[in-house]
């Protein structure tokens, strides 16, 4: 029944505003069956809003709907709920997993669409009491997994699966829907290792060959160019360009996304600190952080340097700062300028003027429902008694709203935080700007030593450059020793002086940042268990 003259999906003059704030302006594009469209743009460019419109999410309707037309197979449609969209053959894999942890892969794939057998009870009380037909379920789950071209164990329980396989389970779930014509993948490779990402790209190609259209959203540009037929670049709610992937390259796309040249080359400005004082000495550290266990780490951080800690996901690099800062159970010895720091007590680290920017921005890093002011000054207020007015010889400590607003505005300006005012809630900011707030929070403590964990995770190229730059400046201008943990080696090589690679919960080696990537790559896999 597919009409050959009409594209599978056409979006015409889509406009959307949130209370007068224009987020999408005149979006036009078409997508044919079997085509892969890469959707790229900085955070806040409007990608997710566009997909929410396509998928009929409630938020769009609640905020006054949208203008323009969505056409499927040449017919105008308007989805009021995601169910309408599912009905029309649109599937979406979200960034966050929506799987039931205790169920098997097959059960998750066919959830609520299980093949069923009627039985005595269901004859009486309706089909909700049908028994599940497990043989059929396995068969259908298998078919869906085959379609994907990547094999996962159908009988495994989700909790026992590696993260990558969970992602594949989600995709298989969408593929198992027979009416599926269009699949939206929102940053599917963000949690995958490189090997898994490669497999995913291959399976996207397979799907396209089977006639399914795919919209692929990601920050990893080389993947887009690798797998997509067309690339749709968005910026500030406009489509900047829609080009065939063959006719462009990463540099060009990056430039279109941010509207300016982004310097991605390694700086090669690594400095030598071997004669400096020891700022922090870590001996035999173990940290019990789920998924990021640290087994035995000994490490010396020199005063004034930027030390990078890299490694594959799950090898324990994130456990190091979280353990030292007392957020997870830890043991071992940590000395800061020859003074021992007790573990498992965040306050003691803060008192010693060590600050931490957590990788879990929304969970640990921010007070989502409070103003930027609170977010930025809270630790300084609690730990250092700053931004307070004292009355009755210190018995009453009153928030000094004026100095709080001043310092917040100072950081808003310095870090170019995009917001309506210092009173705006941090929840309302985009990922990149939230990260800047987290940095400002750490900066406002005036620390001597700063742990920064995954500062660029999930933020776009432009914001990434600004964040890295701010860190570098903070190190150079204030002489602050920085330990930066990141999964992106290139980013570490860009700003660090030395890079330590963690593998299997131990330090596999420390190399100067100018060493070639291959040397680091070898270290990363050296102790993997």
């Amino acid at each position, binding site marked *: 029944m597919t009409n050959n003259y009409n594209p599978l999906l056409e979006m015409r003059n889509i406009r959307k505003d949130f209370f*007068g704030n224009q987020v999408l302006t005149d979006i036009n594009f078409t997508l044919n069956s079997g085509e892969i469209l890469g959707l790229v743009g900085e955070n806040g460019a409007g990608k997710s809003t566009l997909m929410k419109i396509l998928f009929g999410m409630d938020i769009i309707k609640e905020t006054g709907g949208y203008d323009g037309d969505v056409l499927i197979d040449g017919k105008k449609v308007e989805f009021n709920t995601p169910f309408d969209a599912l009905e029309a053959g649109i599937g979406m894999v979200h960034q966050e997993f929506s799987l039931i942890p205790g169920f098997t892969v097959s059960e998750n794939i066919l959830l609520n669409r299980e093949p069923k057998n009627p039985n005595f009870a269901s004859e009486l009380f309706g089909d909700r009491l049908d028994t599940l037909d497990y043989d059929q379920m396995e068969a259908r789950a298998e078919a869906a997994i085959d379609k994907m071209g990547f094999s996962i164990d159908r009988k495994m329980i989700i909790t026992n699966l590696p993260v990558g396989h969970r992602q594949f389970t989600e995709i298989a779930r969408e593929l198992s829907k027979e009416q599926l014509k269009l699949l939206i993948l929102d940053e599917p490779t963000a949690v995958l290792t490189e090997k898994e990402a490669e497999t995913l790209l291959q399976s996207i190609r397979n799907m396209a060959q089977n006639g399914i259209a795919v919209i692929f959203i990601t920050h990893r540009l080389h993947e887009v160019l690798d797998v997509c037929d067309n690339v749709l670049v968005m910026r500030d709610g406009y489509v900047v360009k829609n080009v065939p992937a063959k006719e462009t390259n990463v540099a060009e796309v990056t430039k279109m996304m941010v509207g300016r040249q982004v310097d991605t080359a390694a700086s090669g400005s690594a400095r030598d600190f071997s004669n400096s004082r020891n700022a922090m000495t870590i001996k035999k550290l173990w940290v019990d952080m789920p998924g990021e266990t640290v087994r035995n780490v000994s490490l010396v951080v020199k005063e004034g340097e930027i030390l990078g800690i890299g490694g594959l996901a799950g090898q324990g690099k994130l456990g190091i700062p979280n353990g030292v800062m007392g957020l997870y159970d830890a043991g071992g010895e940590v000395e800061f300028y020859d003074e021992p720091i007790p573990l498992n007590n965040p306050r003691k680290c803060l008192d010693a003027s060590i600050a931490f920017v957590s990788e879990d921005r929304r969970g640990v890093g921010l007070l989502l429902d409070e103003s930027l002011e609170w977010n930025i000054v809270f630790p300084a207020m609690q730990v250092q008694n700053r931004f307070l007015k004292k009355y009755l010889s210190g018995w009453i400590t009153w928030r000094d709203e004026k100095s709080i607003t001043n310092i917040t505005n100072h950081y808003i300006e310095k870090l170019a935080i995009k917001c309506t005012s210092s009173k705006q809630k941090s929840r309302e900011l985009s990922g990149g700007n939230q990260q800047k707030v987290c940095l400002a929070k750490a900066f406002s403590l005036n620390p001597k030593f700063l742990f920064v964990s995954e500062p660029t995770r999930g933020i776009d190229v432009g914001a990434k450059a600004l964040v890295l730059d701010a860190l570098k400046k903070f190190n150079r201008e204030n002489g602050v020793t920085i330990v930066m943990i990141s999964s992106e080696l290139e980013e570490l090589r860009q700003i660090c002086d030395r890079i330590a690679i963690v593998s299997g919960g131990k330090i596999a080696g420390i190399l100067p940042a100018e060493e070639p990537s291959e040397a680091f790559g070898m270290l990363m896999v050296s102790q993997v268990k």
Partner: protein
Amino acid sequence: MNEQITSERRMYRGAVQNAIKTFGIPRLIIAAFLLTLFIAAPLVGADFATQLTNTINRFSWNAILVLAMVPMIHSGCGLNFGLPLGIISGLLGGTLSIEFGFTGAMSFFMAIIIATPFAIIFGAAYGWLLNKIKGGEMMIATYVGFSSVSFMCIMWLLLPYKSPNMVWGLSGNGLRTTISVEGFYDKVLANFLQINLGKLSIPLGTLLFFALIAFLMWAFLHTKTGTSMTAVGSNPAFAKAAGVNVDKVRLLSVLLSTWLGAVGILVYQQGFGFIQLYMAPFYMALPAVSAILIGGASVNKASIANVVIGTFLFQGIVTMTPTVMNSMIHMDMSEVIRIIVSNGMILYALTRKMEG
């Protein structure tokens, strides 16, 4: 041009929707209902000034009990369904003050003083318990409240009270269910600076006392400790990473809530004129909880304005419905409406509880 008008209109519509959202649909409905009652009152022959006096009176009795919700909401312990624990501290304070022979204003002052150590002991145990079961506070709080009331039902009989003003007449031991505070602290606050304008009388003293406590609460939330309390409620992980002792702050909030419950019931008694023992505290948490919710608070955010607005609306309905409804349909609907409003409001708020 046309486009601009639509966009402007949409903006306007958005702003109105936003305003309704911030004010809250339930609050809007209840306020409208109360307004209707005030308008209808003279039509069915009820005297407006008397009605208003009653409403203000009841507001002054209940406001501090509602205020007792605020600290625990701020620290993320949820709605204080364990308010009866605070009330029991207040009852102990009140009865002991009478037992020790204090009279007049002194008995009220001493009641608060005596209630304080009980509030601290009970609150500490209650807070310790709530720190053990983070995430399920409200459920546990409800049962803490209920079981403490039942336990005290036994104690009121067994404790060696001797004052003839309070014990059962025949046996001479065990406290009576209702004890008059006449001659002790009956209306000590209400009669202070009372304003009388014809039929309208305003218990200015009680209102001032509430204003004082509310001001202290407001001020507390502006201090360093108060700020940490709000942050703990907003995101405990953030507060922990910022070096705040989360358990300690939560414990403090429970202590404050419990103490405010104790003071609240004493203020209630001085207005109402009686100490009610045994099962009376059992249901006292629900009206307070629903009042603050009507005032626009949520499970994890509350302000002093929420307390004032909520108490006024809730008590307004409680006072107005009997007179207006009864004269209209000659049937006692007021209790039914009160229960629907209070429980419905709690149910509504719990369904709207934000995740995490």
